[in-house]
């Protein structure tokens, strides 16, 4: 579903992403670990068609993001680290707008209510203006928008950072449910423990290079934390 082939992105002399190859299938959660500036978000931005790659391609459901970004975006939903929505709109209005923008029509109020309940938003917040929402509430609304889009691929950029443990746990539970529905989920994070808990595979990215990918079995056997710390502690050239 998400296919990254020989992807490189350079900003002048800075190699933000270097020869990245990765495939994420439907019904899989892939977590990408990496320090700040490792190239995780850049890869996401290229996958969303916001930035053009220096080399390589990203395909979403077989559609090349660079060649046909509008078609590719039909198959992808995005949740950022800090979901920001239209503050003057209520949760329902925001959800309605982005659902329609995603191409879905004729969605009933009941359906909106169901999805808002599913992501764990309190009922009294449905018709409240979003500008008074906490970060956790906004993240929940962000995932509700992604659910309503019903895209095959979901890209999440550090979605649990800054969330309290309860909200983070609820959030991960939702991701697990989406995996059950066959979605391909890419999540970037700093949180090794949550990555280990939810992911089917975990990758470590250092200095724009994907250093290693851990399978479920490897995650159970090896000390991910120690390996991660070793990778990020080494100088970039050595790590590569």
């Amino acid at each position, binding site marked *: 579903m998400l296919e990254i082939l020989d992807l490189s992105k350079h900003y002048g002399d800075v190699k933000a992403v270097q020869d990245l190859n990765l495939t994420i299938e439907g019904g899989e959660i892939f977590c990408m670990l990496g320090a700040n500036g490792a190239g995780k978000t850049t890869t996401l931005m290229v996958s969303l068609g*916001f930035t053009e790659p220096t080399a390589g391609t990203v395909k979403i459901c077989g559609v090349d993001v660079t060649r046909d970004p*509008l*078609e590719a975006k039909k198959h992808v939903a995005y949740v950022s680290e800090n*979901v920001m*929505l239209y503050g003057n709109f209520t949760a329902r209005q925001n959800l309605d707008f982005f659902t329609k923008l995603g*191409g879905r029509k004729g969605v009933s109020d009941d359906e909106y209510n169901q999805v808002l309940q599913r992501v764990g938003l309190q009922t009294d917040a449905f018709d409240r203006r979003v500008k008074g929402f906490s970060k956790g509430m906004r993240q929940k609304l962000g995932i509700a928008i992604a659910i309503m889009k019903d895209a095959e691929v979901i890209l999440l950029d550090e979605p649990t950072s800054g969330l309290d443990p309860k909200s983070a746990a609820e959030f991960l539970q939702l991701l697990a449910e989406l995996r059950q529905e066959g979605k391909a989920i890419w999540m970037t994070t700093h949180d090794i423990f949550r990555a280990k808990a939810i992911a089917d595979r975990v990758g470590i990215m250092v200095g724009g290079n994907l250093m290693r990918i851990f399978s479920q079995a490897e995650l159970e056997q090896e000390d991910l934390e120690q390996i991660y710390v070793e990778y990020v502690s080494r100088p970039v050239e050595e790590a590569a």
Partner: protein
Amino acid sequence: MFFLTIKKEIVHNILSFRFIVTYALLFCLVLLAIFLMTDEYGKRLEEYNRAVGKERQWLEKVENMEDPNEQFQEVQRASFVGSRRPKNLSILARGLEGNLPTQVNAGSWGRFIQTSEDRLSKNMLFDIFQTPDFVYVINIVMSLLALLFVFDSVCGEKEQGTLKLLLSNSVPRDIVLIGKWIGGYLSVIAPFSVAALGGFTYIYISGNFVGSNDGIFRFFLIYLISLLYISAFFTLGLMISTLTHRTSTALLVALLVWICWILVVPNLSPVLARLIAPVPSRQVIDGEKQAIDKETQLLIEGINKRKVYGDEAEMERIQSAADKRKNKLEEFYQDRMRSQMSLSQNLARVSPSASFLFATTRLAGTGPVLYRFFQQAQEKFSEAAQQFQRSMYTQDLVEWSPQGPKVKDPDWFKADNLPHFEMFEERIGDSFNEALFDILLLVIYNVLFFMLSYTFFLRYDAT
């Protein structure tokens, strides 16, 4: 998707605090400007009607005199006063209305004096703090509000983080931009249109458009030009928003451009024109004319002293040559003045504000054209007064005796023969044609800003 983005922009704007502030501010300012200017126009009209009434009374008095000799003496003593009727659309665009004399006085034998209302008898502070008119509110307030409404339309969404979410959907950027433009623009012009409609209703009810559709059409055209002008500033704001990545930077740039275009360019252009195309002062020209007169007088005095046959023809030739030189000098002055004015007008057109003012005052009939028509009317009035006075002293009409003048024809006096001060009224089609250049400039500004916004937004880094 297109209508969805428009709807989102409109709802988003309507729910914002600035929309309420804009609505209230515009409604108050536009209506207040129209109320005050209607009142001011009413006073001018009253003054005009009083002057015309006074003239009519005098005419009736003269017409009712039974003795033609007494009638003759009364007319002889009179100085002809012409009154300028104020323009009803000065309610919308004052232009030069307050600066030109409301009355002209043709004194005896072609001596010509311009009089104006007695300015000393009124509060001079009114001249310092002039009542803002409808066009002023649009030119200054509305342009600023349009900019403030849209300066963060794109960069604000980027800063807030919603642009990334918006563009992560399968929505073309041009649809987003056009949606933003239409939605935002409708949000700006809605309160303005409501206020303008309120103002129009008030002017209509107060009877200032009675008997003429011309005034209504002109109002409508001024309203349409205002929409075009607001759109130019709105599109400029959108362009600034697609050029910048922070709202603070966008606000600063927007304010800077606004100050340059509203305050600096139009005020600086006459100064620049004066430097590029200098015109000698009126005093210099008058001094030159006086020198010619002096020279002519000396020559004529010299000829008078020698008393030779044919001197009269020589004196006439000298006088006529002097008159020609003076006329040439006057023409030179007027030509240079016209060039300077035209240059300053063209320089000012670098700002849409100047184009807007030129177009609206042309349609209101209160722009530079009012001065030209006034001058023409003044000249005609002066000529007619001189001609009438000359005709009074022909031997066919009057015989002079030690007891005074004796009029030969008892029915000599006809009110229609008296000089009338009449200003040319430009037809609406002609006014529109004359304003067309400035209207086209506003269209060009709109297209240019939108094309630039479009180009910048296609490359805009949403991350």
